[in-house]
């Protein structure tokens, strides 16, 4: 067993990176999903091409991005085009895999990124979230969708407050096709404690892989329905030193994985620029 220390975010990024295959075209959102994409590209899928909804196709990942429209999203791109064009290409089926985050997910993999209602409703919610962005479009149109979400109380719910992005809708046979959706729906839900997949018949989410040191009961207690567990439940391997190095190189100033705390620990703009250039491989 490796004694290398790692954070939950790092393990999430590594588990997600494994869902990408070499030569695929991936539509990836900002944040940890992007770190996972960069990690895959620098590790086991060097020919992975990333597409951003701003209109950037196949950039070299010299720098990490904080928004899909950062100039870094265009660094060394194969094609720089428009937003409506990449969404049309998505609708044509050119993109193999998409990665999404969410605030809430239900047992059929439907996602909420619009609002947490609390005691209120859509019009006066407890927490207003960013909205769909391109999330709904990815969930509607891309062949394989991987969801990244922390396994925390009130995130895995029987029913999402607002269905922003379609998973398997009500789970009934052919529900996606009946609604007019193209992609085949979510294939994996990567969390900080376990990885879930979907039953091909019932479309219900089940526990597929548990992380080292996590108990099945702990996972079940954080899921808002009677979670089924795979007969051949797997345990994820500890991340290797090489995998951790790849994740850390993808986010060298730790501003994605480390958030506001990491931002405050930087001495200032000079240090940020120096770290970025030093780790760009350029």
């Amino acid at each position, binding site marked *: 067993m490796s004694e290398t220390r790692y954070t939950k975010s790092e393990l999430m990024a590594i588990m997600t990176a494994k869902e990408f295959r070499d030569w695929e075209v991936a539509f990836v959102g900002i944040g940890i999903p992007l770190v996972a994409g960069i990690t895959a590209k620098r590790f086991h899928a060097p020919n992975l091409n990333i597409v951003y909804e701003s209109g950037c196709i196949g950039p070299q990942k010299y720098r990490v991005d904080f*928004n899909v*429209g*950062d*100039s870094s999203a265009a660094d060394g791109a194969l094609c720089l085009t428009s937003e409506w064009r990449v969404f049309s290409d998505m609708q044509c089926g050119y993109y193999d895999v998409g990665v999404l985050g969410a605030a809430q997910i239900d047992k059929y993999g439907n996602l909420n990124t619009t609002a947490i209602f609390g005691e209120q409703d859509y019009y006066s919610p407890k927490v*207003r979230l960013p909205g769909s962005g391109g999330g709904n479009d990815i969930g509607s149109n891309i062949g394989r969708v991987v969801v990244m979400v922390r396994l925390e109380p009130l995130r895995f719910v029987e029913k999402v407050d607002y269905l922003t992005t379609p998973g398997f809708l009500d789970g009934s046979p052919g529900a996606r096709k*009946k*609604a007019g959706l193209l992609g085949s729906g979510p294939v994996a839900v990567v969390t900080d404690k376990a990885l879930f997949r979907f039953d091909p018949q019932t479309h219900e989410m089940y526990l597929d892989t548990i992380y080292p040191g996590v108990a099945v009961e702990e996972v079940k207690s954080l899921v808002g329905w009677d979670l089924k567990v795979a007969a051949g439940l797997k345990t994820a391997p500890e991340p290797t030193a090489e995998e951790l190095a790849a994740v850390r190189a993808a986010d060298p100033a730790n501003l994605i994985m480390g958030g*506001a705390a990491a931002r405050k620990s930087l001495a200032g703009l000079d240090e940020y620029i120096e770290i970025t250039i030093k780790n760009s491989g350029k």
Partner: protein
Amino acid sequence: MTESNYASKQMTLQEAIKKYVQSGCSITFGGFIGRDCVAAAHEIIRQGIRDLTVIDDSKTDVMDLLVGAGCVKRWEGAYLGYGAIGLAPNIRRSVEKGVPLKIELEDWSNAGISMRFLAGSLNVPFMATRSMLGTDIIKYNERVKVINDPYEGEPVALVPAARPDVAIIHVQRADVMGNAQVWGFTGNDENKARAARHTIITCEEIVSTDEIRRQGNLTLIPFYCVDAVVQVPFGCHPQSCYGYYAYDVLFCGDYHEAAKDRDKFLKWLDHYVLSSEDHLAYCAKVGWDRLQKLMGMERRFNRIPG
């Protein structure tokens, strides 16, 4: 849709906003959380414009400022968040608590709203998309119409053309006629300029028309779509502008932290916007040295030839 094609449409930012952005009008902004018209949003706030309807895809920095300053009545769009930094503090305060005003929201997906600008640019009443089907976006937004495709019978969503009164789009280079050249991604800018009744181009540099002609492929927006041309160097800060300057993530992080508190946001707004006479005064407060460093960083990665 310009009223007339003058040899020069160059004016100051103050003049352009005063002439084309009125209280109560509908507006869209170019860029895509990157190449955003931040300086133009500052000027809208300085001029005290109110009751705007913002029709947009993903434009957080501009929207968070405008909503916090009380300029927006309604938003039709897809995304309002600070990417990897977090949620949008002023949007949350407005929607959750009605401070300073409660904005009306109409949610779309990015592809859905993109199709609205495409329809507007094609001068057709609507466009079809396979996005948003089967979700609550359609439940709460009755302007998305699900019909059966009259040819094949499968369900498809229809979205109405967007026709904002004004589009403001920041580009790298333009000439005084209004030919606007863009490097990097282009978002929905070509369609926004065509869908809008009036288009203001803000740019990093004004170049000669001969210079435009050297690389006509790069002209995303031709002169006849454009009503005003304004040179606004560093007009996107703290956002990035491909080939000119990198994203100032630390400045944006500080803003985000301050904006979580209403009083601190108002102090920020007063310091950087209301008590800055114009964009040059804002740049001086940010620091020319800082802006030069962001420019130096960007040019390590992306350089505009010529």
